[in-house]
């Protein structure tokens, strides 16, 4: 109960526009908990503002290159995936049609040895082994 009733004594300070911009960029709100964490991060940091700003600029540039590269690769992937899906679907459609045609052949007797051999091979392929295709 004592802990619950204990209030943190605070003071109000005016921030800089840079801090406001950074909090917006990071999408965070500077509540008491966040302020404590950020200040301790500031205390722990071995870098000066100028070093951090330089590192950030470098990281932003790196991100720009990475995003640009990612977009190129993603565009190539889109084209390849589309071709892959198209070819696979077309193969699936033709195979299903072939299965229906092979079923038709099941109910008739072949004319000659060669036709019988072909018929059996196709029935084997599109009916017996269909699931393994």
């Amino acid at each position: 109960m004592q802990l619950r009733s204990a209030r943190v004594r605070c003071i109000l300070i005016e921030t800089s526009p840079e801090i406001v911009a950074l909090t917006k960029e990071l999408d965070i709100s500077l509540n008491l908990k966040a302020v404590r964490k950020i200040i301790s991060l500031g205390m722990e940091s071995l870098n000066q503002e100028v070093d951090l700003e330089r590192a950030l600029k470098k990281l932003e540039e790196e991100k720009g290159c990475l995003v640009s590269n990612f977009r190129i690769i993603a565009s190539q992937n889109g084209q390849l995936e589309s071709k892959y899906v198209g070819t696979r679907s077309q193969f699936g459609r033709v195979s299903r049609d072939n299965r229906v045609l092979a079923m038709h052949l099941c109910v008739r007797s072949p004319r000659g040895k060669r036709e019988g051999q072909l018929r059996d091979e196709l029935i084997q392929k599109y009916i017996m082994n269909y699931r393994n295709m």
Partner: protein
Amino acid sequence: MNAGDERSPTHKIKIPRDLYEEVGSQEKMIRLIKVGLLSLRAISLERENADLIKRTEDLEIRNAELPHEIARFQQLLEEALKDRKTLERLDKKR
């Protein structure tokens, strides 16, 4: 108070008094907050970049596999189309 609140013209924030006393001055406090936020941004950017590198690598692997997969299905399709002709020919003979 939210520092990102545009309705607040002065952008004031609450600081725990113990922390303020430990730091000593408003100027130092502002500098520490700025350094903390810059560090946080750097950490966030490092993670975003690492994530982008990983996603690009994964796509590159997939892009290298896809031509083989496409070629395999194209070969299977050609074979299936050839079989269809044979099946249709056999079916017509009924």
